[in-house]
């Protein structure tokens, strides 16, 4: 290998190291320019970039595991105890992985109480078993809203529309307030997410395939009876309705009635 080849190899390895950051939008414009010029001619870097993208896309779909309701109550109770006895110095307590969980008894009772409470608090269509597409949409909603949202533009929306085998129909009343779009997987299948500003909140419309939407009997029954499926989960509401060859789930921290007012078919594009 001559000097020129060695330099070229070193440059290739240096640029290959940047591919992950390039994909993540973490490079400077100058670095992007150099890397994109290199990518045009380098097949192995193109393959490496595809690998980086494939792994990232899959991990973005790794669903958030909801914390057990009893854990929240346990934490709140422990925090209240802490207030009553504010430690002047750090106490020499046994660590959590060696401790016998003394709270187990009342935690079970609290859990039972919460389950009973939820049964009455949650919406009219919810049952004891969560529906996977609803759980996935709620988890994605919380994950995305806790970070920076990708920018919505017509190119991004068109790209997502082209990549999906079903139509993505934004909600007419909300379309002027579209602030972000992204793709994801729900119930193992590709889906689209469209985030809108609604009053002082952000609501997200998850558009899924018809097969994902109608997979659960409870959804089918609710849609047959009421034209839509409704769930309240804590502060959040979810309203789901079928569209042309697709289904939409509208998620947001507003009342069910507010979300319902946006759903009717005649309001869709």
């Amino acid at each position, binding site marked *: 290998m001559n000097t020129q080849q060695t330099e070229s190899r070193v440059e290739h390895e240096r640029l290959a*190291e*940047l*591919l*992950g*950051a390039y994909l*993540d939008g*973490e490079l400077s414009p100058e670095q992007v320019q150099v890397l994109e010029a290199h990518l045009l001619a380098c097949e*192995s870097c193109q*393959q*490496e970039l*595809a*690998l*980086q993208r*494939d*792994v*990232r*896309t*899959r*991990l*973005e779909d*790794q*669903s*958030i*595991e*909801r*914390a*057990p309701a009893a*854990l*929240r109550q*346990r*934490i*709140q109770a*422990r*925090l*209240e105890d*802490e*207030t009553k006895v504010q*430690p002047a110095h*750090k106490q020499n307590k046994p*660590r*959590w*992985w060696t*401790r016998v*969980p003394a709270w187990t008894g009342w935690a079970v009772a609290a859990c039972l109480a919460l389950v009973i409470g939820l049964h009455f608090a949650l919406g009219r269509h919810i049952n004891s078993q969560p529906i996977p597409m609803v759980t996935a949409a709620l*988890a994605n909603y*919380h*994950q*995305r809203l*806790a*970070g*920076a949202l990708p920018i919505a533009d017509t190119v991004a929306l068109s790209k997502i529309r082209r990549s999906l085998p079903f139509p993505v129909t934004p909600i007419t009343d909300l379309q002027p307030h579209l602030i972000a779009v992204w793709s994801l*997987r729900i119930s*193992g299948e590709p889906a689209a997410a469209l985030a809108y500003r609604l009053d002082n909140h952000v609501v997200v419309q998850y558009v899924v395939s018809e097969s994902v939407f109608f997979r659960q009997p409870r959804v089918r029954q609710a849609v047959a009876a009421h034209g839509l499926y409704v769930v309240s989960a804590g502060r959040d509401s979810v309203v789901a309705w079928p569209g042309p060859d697709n289904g939409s789930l509208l998620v947001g921290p507003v009342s069910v009635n507010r979300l319902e007012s946006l759903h009717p078919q005649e309001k869709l594009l």
Partner: protein
Amino acid sequence: MTPEQRHFQALTLPFLDRLFSAAQQQLGSRQQAEDLVQETYLNAWRAFTSLEDEARVYPWLYCIMRRELADYYRRRGRRNALVSITSLEAAATELLQADGTDPLEHTLAALGNERMAHLMRLMPEVFAEALVLHDVEGFAYREIADITKAPIGTVMSRISRARRLLAGLVHQYRDTSDQALRQSVDGLEHKEVGR
């Protein structure tokens, strides 16, 4: 409950699911994840005055959980060399050179969440953590550098390399059943605990 405690809870409890999920990803046990997160909240309350920017409450909470997690690993000993990094790099290269149209994309799409979590627990900690923080949790590189106290160049390199390692793991364990993989992870972690 005092007003300060109400404020603390209002700020921090919205992140309970995310913290629990991240803990579960890394520990693989719901019970241990619950205990870790509970301890994190108690420590966070005790250190509440150290929170300088309320807009950055989640990275602050994550830092506290990370310290607790590091303490746990230090006491128990764990997986710095569960798998050969060299063999994973080789597996990733083999995968890139395989025939077919983007076989990795299809293989990954078919993998369940639990299997992905098991595979990540076979990776050395720093790499698994980089993927959880960026690709699962959605932190930016600068935030990850702040959380992990690592230079941004290191963060960049870890994320890129971690994706290669995970692709290598997916390829290397492609014919291993979920049950055998779980036993493999449990066995390795158990062996590490006993050293």
